[in-house]
């Protein structure tokens, strides 16, 4: 059925906004995106008028892991069915917040996507990485659990050491049709004994991972806080840097030289700082270490013209899912213009998948019919970003999945 959306303001994702714009959706793709005055007649279309229309948002750093609290040891205590049940609720909340596509960098979304595609579960289209490659003792390891026991648990990571094992780990994910490969190239906040500054994986291991992924036309996303990991990842050919807390001018220059994308995930840092009572002590203290530096790093990167994509790293089940749009506000705080920040959350999203990118994230003819309407003008006011109730309409593959009653 043809859907027509007439908007006072059409924001295409990439390119100039149009005052008085129209989108026509047919057969799951956009068949027209342009000024209302030039739009074709659509006598049998279902017509909706909205103040602002834009592409469905892309979440570039998602985890649908079903953890109830910010403590990764829960991956041992909470069964897979329990975690997946929570994740299903989180997927729906995400879609209702205007996110129609998610690059999941570790979690159950990659499995649930089959049901999402079949219409059995409500959620964004998930482009998953499968399991996060980590060294033994690295960021995706759960250090307080004996290694033998970890082998018997279903958790976010695959531990791999040495070129043969990291190659196999990439292939284990490809076997699940992962669309991107995610690795930890530094220590982290939620992991207990490692340090966010230290590089994880040798240069040789990093190269082996990138090369194996490239043979299957996948790019690699690297979790890195500290500069050693950022630089090593970029030199090895990693294409997206996640968090990048200790980004400086030299690192930003290398990002641009390598054509890499920065996914800072300021949202999670901001939220974790407010969770002192429920975070493990080690995690709160490590969060403090990265927080200030990361804000600086984002500003440096923005000033240099590094390409950004919006990701939140939300990983605690519940109402945080759906607030994904808030990352747009954080990107503007770092120096991006309103349009640039929106581009980071729409048109740039597919770019974080490299060759696997679908035609999505833009209001453009031939692109996926994933569209949202909001009740505020984001070029004037970024504060409402992150409030799901300010997203009034969501269309996914041309079907309305959210609208006012």
């Amino acid at each position, binding site marked *: 059925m043809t859907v027509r959306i007439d908007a006072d303001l059409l924001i295409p994702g990439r390119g100039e906004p149009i005052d008085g714009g129209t989108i026509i959706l047919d057969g799951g793709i956009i068949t027209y995106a342009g000024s209302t005055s030039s739009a074709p007649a659509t006598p049998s279309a279902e017509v909706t008028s909205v103040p602002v229309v834009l592409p469905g948002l892309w979440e570039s750093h998602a985890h649908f892991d079903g953890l109830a609290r910010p403590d990764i040891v829960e991956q041992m205590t909470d069964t897979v069915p329990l975690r997946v049940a929570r994740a299903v609720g989180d997927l729906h909340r995400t879609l209702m917040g205007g996110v129609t596509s998610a690059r999941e960098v570790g979690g159950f979304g990659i499995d649930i996507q089959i049901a999402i595609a079949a219409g059995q579960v409500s959620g964004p289209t998930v482009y998953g990485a499968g399991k996060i490659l980590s060294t033994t*003792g690295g960021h995706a390891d759960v250090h307080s659990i004996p290694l033998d026991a970890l082998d018997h648990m279903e958790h976010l990571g695959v531990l791999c050491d040495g070129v043969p094992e990291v190659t196999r780990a990439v292939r284990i994910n490809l076997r699940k049709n992962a669309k991107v490969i995610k690795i930890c190239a530094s220590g982290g906040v939620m992991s207990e*004994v490692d340090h966010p500054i230290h590089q994880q994986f040798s240069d040789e291991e990093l190269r082996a991972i990138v090369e194996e992924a490239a043979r299957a036309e996948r790019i690699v996303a690297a979790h890195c806080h500290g500069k050693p990991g950022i630089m090593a990842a970029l030199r090895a050919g990693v294409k997206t840097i996640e968090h990048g807390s200790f980004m400086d001018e030299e690192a930003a220059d290398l990002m641009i030289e390598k054509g890499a994308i920065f996914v800072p995930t300021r949202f999670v840092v901001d939220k974790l700082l407010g969770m002192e009572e429920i975070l493990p002590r080690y995690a709160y203290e490590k969060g403090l270490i990265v927080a200030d530096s990361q804000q600086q790093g984002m500003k440096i990167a923005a000033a240099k013209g590094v390409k950004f994509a919006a990701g939140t790293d939300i990983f605690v089940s519940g109402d945080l899912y759906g607030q994904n749009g808030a990352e747009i506000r954080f990107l503007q705080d770092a120096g991006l213009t309103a349009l640039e920040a929106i581009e980071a959350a729409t048109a740039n999203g597919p770019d974080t998948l490299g060759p696997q990118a679908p035609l999505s994230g833009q209001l453009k003819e031939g692109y996926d019919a994933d569209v949202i309407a909001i009740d505020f003008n984001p070029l004037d006011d970024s504060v409402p970003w992150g409030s799901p109730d300010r997203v009034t309409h969501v269309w996914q593959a041309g079907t309305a999945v959210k609208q006012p009653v």
Partner: protein
Amino acid sequence: MKTRIDAHMLIPGRGDPIPDGTVTFDERGIDYVGPTAQAPADAPQPVAVVETVMPGLWDCHSHFGVSTPEELDGHMLSGQAVYGSRAAADLGRTIDGGVTSVREVGGVGLDLVGEIEAGRVRGPNLYGAGGILSPTAGHSDIHSIPLSAMDALRDQLQFSNVADGVPGVLKAVRKNLRKNAKVIKICTSGGVMSEVDHWSHQQFSDDEIRAIVDEAARAERVVAAHAEGKAGIMAALRCGVHTIEHGDELDEEAIVAILEAEAMLIPTLWITRMLMSMPDEMPDYAYAKLSELAAIQDEGLTKAIDAGVPIAMGTDIFLHGDFYGTNSREMLHLIEVGMDPLAAIEAATANGPATLGPQAPRSGQLKDGFDADVIAIDFDPLTEFISWGDPSRVTHVWKAGSPLKQPS
């Protein structure tokens, strides 16, 4: 609340002793160090007036929960609860001997760091390595146990971390880092207590050693290498190892290599003398190899001392019981082979933290802002160094400003 100690002699660890000196400290660290006559007006009354006050000692080569004299000929399969219990007792004995910090280069002590820090186990600050890396058939492999059983016994053999090939050694280092090891210990030569290998042979290829050093460095850890023969010493140094343990076969070339690598030497004379005195308990194969080393060790060390090689004190203590607490005798042995008595104290105090590289705490010296790890002894160690090794001559021990040993 501040503690003040007045002493007939204050030895700072590095620098000149101060006659009639005073140190003040609390749990945050050391404050005033200087002549008693110039102590600040608001300093409290001294809680003790002692013969000699100095920094708590560092034993840079120790093991906890490994063996007993009766088990020397056996397979060391007593089980974790037994090793933990022995270690807890020996950690207390260590404090009684005036050692307030240990670098544990293999053993179960690493697992007890939380207990020590919480005050449930009385013991020194412990900077542990976890399992000792060696290749299959190397010095921390137990050659008489079937290879197929080694993995199943890893809980009983926690001091052992056998790995082969670059991928294997990467994983082995990471297993130790996962337990928050503060240093990585490897074997680049054979040893005495291991049955079929030989101390003169290099263990691990250069590629493997380099991979270990690089992985440790990514996590800001240095590597300590058990290296007795020259081949193992040279391999360790050219691959970036930071501390040479034992270093029995030192010639001029090896000494130059240590200096150029800016590495450190931990000679462990204590263990050689101790085990040489136990011919009946030692297995024959071990005693024979030990005798070869005993014949050459002192001469090379004297040359190293003359050449100014940085030396830190370590005993290689590993037998449960009253041996623990006698660690300071290593200073006497260093003096016997040519070290100046004050330099021997520096090796056992100020030089200790440097054996941890970037993980070094501010410790080992009586100095403003340093950890309040302080001991008092009842003799003058610059003249009566024969008294080192007797725990009863250590009258007071403070760790982090808290009294752990006092006269009764």
